[in-house]
Protein backbone atom coordinates (compact mmCIF):
# COMPACT_ATOMS: atom_id res chain seq x y z
CA UNK A 1 0.00 0.00 0.00
CA UNK A 2 2.81 2.35 0.90
CA UNK A 3 4.64 1.36 -2.26
CA UNK A 4 1.55 2.19 -4.29
CA UNK A 5 1.23 5.59 -2.64
CA UNK A 6 4.89 6.28 -3.33
CA UNK A 7 4.47 5.40 -6.99
CA UNK A 8 1.46 7.66 -7.31
CA UNK A 9 3.29 10.57 -5.71
CA UNK A 10 6.32 10.09 -7.96
CA UNK A 11 4.14 9.89 -11.07
CA UNK A 12 2.29 13.02 -10.03
CA UNK A 13 5.53 14.92 -9.43
CA UNK A 14 6.87 13.77 -12.80
CA UNK A 15 3.77 14.84 -14.72
CA UNK A 16 3.84 18.18 -12.95
CA UNK A 17 7.48 18.78 -13.83
CA UNK A 18 6.79 17.89 -17.48
CA UNK A 19 3.93 20.31 -17.77
CA UNK A 20 5.96 23.00 -16.00
CA UNK A 21 8.94 22.52 -18.30
CA UNK A 22 6.59 22.80 -21.27
CA UNK A 23 5.41 26.15 -19.98
CA UNK A 24 8.88 27.35 -19.11
CA UNK A 25 10.15 26.63 -22.61
CA UNK A 26 7.41 28.52 -24.34
CA UNK A 27 6.14 25.52 -26.21
CA UNK A 28 2.46 25.95 -25.59
CA UNK A 29 0.06 27.32 -28.10
CA UNK A 30 -3.00 26.16 -26.28
CA UNK A 31 -6.16 25.77 -28.28
CA UNK A 32 -4.42 25.81 -31.63
CA UNK A 33 -3.01 22.41 -32.49
CA UNK A 34 -2.47 23.39 -36.12
CA UNK A 35 -0.27 26.41 -35.37
CA UNK A 36 1.55 24.43 -32.69
CA UNK A 37 2.42 21.65 -35.14
CA UNK A 38 3.61 24.24 -37.67
CA UNK A 39 5.70 25.91 -34.95
CA UNK A 40 7.35 22.59 -34.15
CA UNK A 41 8.01 21.91 -37.82
CA UNK A 42 9.76 25.29 -38.18
CA UNK A 43 11.62 24.76 -34.92
CA UNK A 44 12.96 21.43 -36.14
CA UNK A 45 14.40 22.98 -39.30
CA UNK A 46 16.30 25.74 -37.46
CA UNK A 47 19.62 25.32 -35.71
CA UNK A 48 20.06 26.47 -32.17
CA UNK A 49 22.88 28.93 -32.86
CA UNK A 50 24.47 28.52 -29.44
CA UNK A 51 24.52 24.72 -29.39
CA UNK A 52 25.85 23.89 -32.88
CA UNK A 53 24.00 20.73 -33.84
CA UNK A 54 20.65 20.79 -32.15
CA UNK A 55 17.41 22.20 -33.49
CA UNK A 56 15.82 25.00 -31.51
CA UNK A 57 12.90 22.66 -30.92
CA UNK A 58 15.16 20.21 -29.03
CA UNK A 59 17.42 22.67 -27.30
CA UNK A 60 17.26 23.71 -23.66
CA UNK A 61 19.19 26.93 -24.26
CA UNK A 62 17.36 30.07 -23.22
CA UNK A 63 17.96 31.71 -26.60
CA UNK A 64 16.32 28.71 -28.30
CA UNK A 65 13.36 29.08 -25.95
CA UNK A 66 13.08 32.76 -26.88
CA UNK A 67 13.25 31.76 -30.56
CA UNK A 68 10.41 29.28 -30.06
CA UNK A 69 8.37 32.08 -28.55
CA UNK A 70 9.21 34.32 -31.52
CA UNK A 71 8.11 31.61 -34.00
CA UNK A 72 4.78 31.24 -32.21
CA UNK A 73 4.27 35.00 -32.12
CA UNK A 74 4.87 35.27 -35.86
CA UNK A 75 2.57 32.32 -36.59
CA UNK A 76 -0.16 33.88 -34.47
CA UNK A 77 0.36 37.09 -36.44
CA UNK A 78 -0.31 35.15 -39.64
CA UNK A 79 3.18 34.67 -41.13
CA UNK A 80 3.81 31.64 -43.36
CA UNK A 81 6.37 28.99 -42.39
CA UNK A 82 8.64 30.12 -45.24
CA UNK A 83 8.47 33.76 -44.16
CA UNK A 84 9.51 32.90 -40.60
CA UNK A 85 12.40 30.72 -41.76
CA UNK A 86 13.49 33.49 -44.17
CA UNK A 87 13.44 36.00 -41.31
CA UNK A 88 15.71 33.78 -39.25
CA UNK A 89 18.01 33.26 -42.24
CA UNK A 90 18.23 37.03 -42.75
CA UNK A 91 19.29 37.49 -39.16
CA UNK A 92 21.60 34.57 -38.48
CA UNK A 93 22.67 33.55 -41.99
CA UNK A 94 22.56 30.12 -43.63
CA UNK A 95 24.06 28.65 -40.47
CA UNK A 96 20.68 28.77 -38.76
CA UNK A 97 19.21 26.32 -41.30
CA UNK A 98 19.84 22.71 -40.29
CA UNK A 99 19.60 21.58 -43.94
CA UNK A 100 21.99 23.55 -46.16
CA UNK A 101 19.97 25.29 -48.90
CA UNK A 102 20.70 24.52 -52.58
CA UNK A 103 22.32 27.76 -53.77
CA UNK A 104 25.46 28.93 -55.57
CA UNK A 105 27.83 28.53 -52.62
CA UNK A 106 26.55 25.04 -51.76
CA UNK A 107 26.42 23.49 -55.26
CA UNK A 108 29.72 21.74 -54.59
CA UNK A 109 28.23 20.26 -51.43
CA UNK A 110 25.07 19.01 -53.10
CA UNK A 111 26.42 17.93 -56.49
CA UNK A 112 30.13 17.38 -55.72
CA UNK A 113 29.89 13.73 -54.65
CA UNK A 114 27.77 12.73 -57.68
CA UNK A 115 30.12 14.62 -60.02
CA UNK A 116 33.12 12.96 -58.42
CA UNK A 117 31.55 9.53 -58.90
CA UNK A 118 30.61 10.21 -62.54
CA UNK A 119 34.01 11.80 -63.17
CA UNK A 120 35.91 8.83 -61.78
CA UNK A 121 33.75 6.44 -63.80
CA UNK A 122 34.36 8.44 -66.99
CA UNK A 123 38.07 8.46 -66.19
CA UNK A 124 38.02 4.70 -65.74
CA UNK A 125 36.17 4.13 -69.06
CA UNK A 126 38.55 6.45 -70.90
CA UNK A 127 41.66 4.72 -69.56
CA UNK A 128 40.31 1.20 -70.00
CA UNK A 129 39.44 1.91 -73.62
CA UNK A 130 42.79 3.49 -74.38
CA UNK A 131 44.64 0.49 -72.94
CA UNK A 132 42.87 -2.04 -75.20
CA UNK A 133 43.52 0.15 -78.23
CA UNK A 134 47.18 0.40 -77.29
CA UNK A 135 47.54 -3.37 -77.01
CA UNK A 136 45.71 -4.06 -80.29
CA UNK A 137 47.76 -1.71 -82.40
CA UNK A 138 51.22 -2.62 -81.22
CA UNK A 139 52.91 -5.23 -83.37
CA UNK A 140 56.23 -6.58 -82.22
CA UNK A 141 59.25 -4.57 -83.20
CA UNK A 142 61.77 -6.16 -85.49
CA UNK A 143 64.11 -6.81 -82.64
CA UNK A 144 61.38 -8.40 -80.52
CA UNK A 145 60.26 -10.58 -83.44
CA UNK A 146 63.85 -11.73 -83.89
CA UNK A 147 64.18 -12.58 -80.19
CA UNK A 148 60.91 -14.52 -80.32
CA UNK A 149 61.99 -16.43 -83.39
CA UNK A 150 65.29 -17.27 -81.70
CA UNK A 151 63.52 -18.55 -78.60
CA UNK A 152 61.11 -20.63 -80.63
CA UNK A 153 64.00 -22.01 -82.67
CA UNK A 154 65.83 -22.81 -79.41
CA UNK A 155 62.75 -24.71 -78.15
CA UNK A 156 62.44 -26.79 -81.31
CA UNK A 157 65.98 -28.06 -81.06
Amino acid at each position, binding site marked *: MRALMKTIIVLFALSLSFSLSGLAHGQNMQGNADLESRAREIGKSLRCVVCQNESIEESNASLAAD*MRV*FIRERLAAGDSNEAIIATMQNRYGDYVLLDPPVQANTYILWFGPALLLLGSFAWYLFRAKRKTVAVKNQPLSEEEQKRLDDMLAEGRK
Partner: protein
Amino acid sequence: MNISLKALIPLAVFAALCIALAIGLTKDPSELQSMMIDKPFPEFSLPNLHGEGLLGNEVLEGNVTLVNVFGTWCAPCAIEHPVLMKIEQTKAVTLLGVNWMDTRENGRDWLKKHGNPYTYTLSDKHSSLVQALGVAKAPESFLVDKTGRIRYKHTGVITLKAWREVIEPLTQKLEAET
Protein backbone atom coordinates in the same frame (compact mmCIF):
# COMPACT_ATOMS: atom_id res chain seq x y z
CA MET B 1 56.52 8.00 -67.27
CA ASN B 2 53.84 9.92 -69.11
CA ILE B 3 51.15 7.40 -68.21
CA SER B 4 52.15 7.02 -64.56
CA LEU B 5 51.98 10.79 -64.01
CA LYS B 6 48.48 10.88 -65.45
CA ALA B 7 47.49 8.02 -63.19
CA LEU B 8 48.27 10.29 -60.26
CA ILE B 9 45.52 12.74 -61.25
CA PRO B 10 42.75 11.06 -59.19
CA LEU B 11 45.08 11.03 -56.21
CA ALA B 12 45.86 14.71 -56.73
CA VAL B 13 42.14 15.52 -56.91
CA PHE B 14 41.60 13.58 -53.70
CA ALA B 15 44.47 15.38 -51.98
CA ALA B 16 43.11 18.78 -53.08
CA LEU B 17 39.70 17.88 -51.69
CA CYS B 18 41.26 16.80 -48.39
CA ILE B 19 43.17 20.06 -48.10
CA ALA B 20 40.05 22.14 -48.86
CA LEU B 21 38.03 20.24 -46.28
CA ALA B 22 40.83 20.43 -43.72
CA ILE B 23 40.89 24.23 -44.11
CA GLY B 24 37.12 24.22 -43.64
CA LEU B 25 37.50 22.33 -40.38
CA THR B 26 39.69 25.05 -38.87
CA LYS B 27 36.88 27.61 -39.27
CA ASP B 28 34.60 28.14 -36.30
CA PRO B 29 31.04 27.60 -37.55
CA SER B 30 29.63 29.54 -34.62
CA GLU B 31 31.37 32.67 -35.92
CA LEU B 32 28.33 33.76 -37.85
CA GLN B 33 28.44 35.73 -41.06
CA SER B 34 27.74 39.42 -40.72
CA MET B 35 24.20 39.49 -42.01
CA MET B 36 23.46 42.90 -40.54
CA ILE B 37 26.15 45.02 -42.19
CA ASP B 38 24.69 48.00 -44.07
CA LYS B 39 21.18 47.13 -42.96
CA PRO B 40 19.07 49.56 -40.95
CA PHE B 41 19.16 48.89 -37.23
CA PRO B 42 16.08 46.76 -36.38
CA GLU B 43 13.02 48.52 -35.02
CA PHE B 44 12.80 48.12 -31.27
CA SER B 45 10.82 49.31 -28.29
CA LEU B 46 12.26 48.04 -25.03
CA PRO B 47 12.13 48.99 -21.35
CA ASN B 48 14.68 51.52 -20.17
CA LEU B 49 16.90 49.67 -17.68
CA HIS B 50 17.15 52.83 -15.61
CA GLY B 51 13.90 54.59 -14.92
CA GLU B 52 10.56 54.13 -16.54
CA GLY B 53 9.12 53.82 -19.98
CA LEU B 54 10.22 52.36 -23.28
CA LEU B 55 13.12 53.36 -25.51
CA GLY B 56 12.94 53.11 -29.29
CA ASN B 57 15.07 53.82 -32.36
CA GLU B 58 15.07 57.57 -31.59
CA VAL B 59 17.98 57.00 -29.18
CA LEU B 60 20.16 56.20 -32.22
CA GLU B 61 19.31 59.34 -34.15
CA GLY B 62 21.98 61.89 -34.92
CA ASN B 63 24.88 60.10 -33.23
CA VAL B 64 27.35 57.44 -34.18
CA THR B 65 26.46 54.76 -31.64
CA LEU B 66 28.26 51.67 -30.41
CA VAL B 67 25.55 49.18 -29.45
CA ASN B 68 26.88 46.63 -26.98
CA VAL B 69 25.04 43.41 -26.04
CA PHE B 70 25.94 42.25 -22.53
CA GLY B 71 24.60 40.16 -19.67
CA THR B 72 25.48 39.87 -16.01
CA TRP B 73 25.79 36.09 -16.56
CA CYS B 74 28.38 36.61 -19.28
CA ALA B 75 31.94 36.23 -18.00
CA PRO B 76 33.69 37.80 -21.04
CA CYS B 77 31.42 40.85 -20.66
CA ALA B 78 33.03 41.56 -17.29
CA ILE B 79 36.43 41.41 -19.00
CA GLU B 80 35.23 43.78 -21.72
CA HIS B 81 33.61 46.23 -19.33
CA PRO B 82 36.72 48.21 -18.29
CA VAL B 83 37.46 48.83 -21.97
CA LEU B 84 33.94 50.19 -22.47
CA MET B 85 34.52 52.48 -19.47
CA LYS B 86 37.67 53.80 -21.16
CA ILE B 87 35.85 54.26 -24.47
CA GLU B 88 33.17 56.24 -22.67
CA GLN B 89 35.79 58.57 -21.20
CA THR B 90 37.04 59.50 -24.68
CA LYS B 91 33.51 60.73 -25.59
CA ALA B 92 34.28 59.56 -29.11
CA VAL B 93 31.09 57.57 -29.47
CA THR B 94 27.67 57.18 -27.84
CA LEU B 95 27.32 53.83 -26.08
CA LEU B 96 24.01 51.98 -26.06
CA GLY B 97 23.81 48.95 -23.78
CA VAL B 98 21.54 45.99 -24.48
CA ASN B 99 21.16 44.08 -21.24
CA TRP B 100 20.35 40.57 -22.41
CA MET B 101 18.46 37.86 -20.49
CA ASP B 102 18.65 39.55 -17.12
CA THR B 103 16.14 40.87 -14.67
CA ARG B 104 16.23 44.67 -14.51
CA GLU B 105 17.42 44.52 -10.90
CA ASN B 106 20.37 42.29 -11.81
CA GLY B 107 21.28 44.51 -14.74
CA ARG B 108 21.12 47.70 -12.67
CA ASP B 109 23.10 46.20 -9.77
CA TRP B 110 25.78 44.96 -12.14
CA LEU B 111 26.19 48.42 -13.70
CA LYS B 112 26.25 50.00 -10.27
CA LYS B 113 29.04 47.66 -9.23
CA HIS B 114 31.16 47.83 -12.40
CA GLY B 115 30.34 51.37 -13.52
CA ASN B 116 27.95 52.46 -16.26
CA PRO B 117 29.48 53.46 -19.60
CA TYR B 118 26.16 53.54 -21.45
CA THR B 119 24.19 56.66 -22.32
CA TYR B 120 21.10 54.46 -22.59
CA THR B 121 20.59 50.86 -21.54
CA LEU B 122 17.79 48.67 -22.87
CA SER B 123 16.46 45.69 -20.99
CA ASP B 124 16.11 42.82 -23.49
CA LYS B 125 15.05 40.08 -21.14
CA HIS B 126 13.37 37.92 -23.79
CA SER B 127 15.94 38.31 -26.59
CA SER B 128 13.67 40.26 -28.91
CA LEU B 129 16.24 42.81 -30.11
CA VAL B 130 19.05 40.27 -29.74
CA GLN B 131 17.28 37.92 -32.15
CA ALA B 132 16.54 40.73 -34.56
CA LEU B 133 20.27 41.53 -34.55
CA GLY B 134 21.20 37.90 -35.19
CA VAL B 135 23.23 37.73 -31.99
CA ALA B 136 24.03 34.28 -30.62
CA LYS B 137 26.62 35.08 -27.98
CA ALA B 138 27.57 37.96 -25.75
CA PRO B 139 29.41 40.23 -25.84
CA GLU B 140 28.72 41.48 -29.33
CA SER B 141 28.77 45.05 -30.58
CA PHE B 142 27.47 46.99 -33.56
CA LEU B 143 28.61 50.36 -34.81
CA VAL B 144 25.60 52.31 -36.05
CA ASP B 145 25.95 55.46 -38.17
CA LYS B 146 24.03 58.71 -37.74
CA THR B 147 21.24 57.56 -40.04
CA GLY B 148 20.65 54.42 -37.98
CA ARG B 149 22.38 51.99 -40.31
CA ILE B 150 24.62 49.20 -38.99
CA ARG B 151 28.11 49.61 -40.42
CA TYR B 152 30.30 47.26 -38.43
CA LYS B 153 29.92 44.23 -36.21
CA HIS B 154 32.41 43.16 -33.57
CA THR B 155 32.02 39.61 -32.24
CA GLY B 156 33.37 38.93 -28.76
CA VAL B 157 35.28 41.13 -26.35
CA ILE B 158 36.30 44.58 -27.60
CA THR B 159 39.95 44.89 -26.66
CA LEU B 160 41.71 48.21 -26.33
CA LYS B 161 43.66 47.26 -29.44
CA ALA B 162 40.48 46.54 -31.44
CA TRP B 163 39.08 49.88 -30.31
CA ARG B 164 42.17 51.90 -31.22
CA GLU B 165 42.95 50.16 -34.50
CA VAL B 166 39.51 49.42 -35.96
CA ILE B 167 36.50 50.82 -34.15
CA GLU B 168 37.79 54.30 -33.23
CA PRO B 169 39.04 55.13 -36.75
CA LEU B 170 35.77 53.85 -38.21
CA THR B 171 33.82 55.94 -35.70
CA GLN B 172 35.71 59.05 -36.81
CA LYS B 173 34.99 58.22 -40.43
CA LEU B 174 31.28 57.77 -39.73
CA GLU B 175 31.27 60.95 -37.65
CA ALA B 176 32.54 62.85 -40.68
CA GLU B 177 29.69 61.56 -42.83
CA THR B 178 26.70 63.82 -43.10
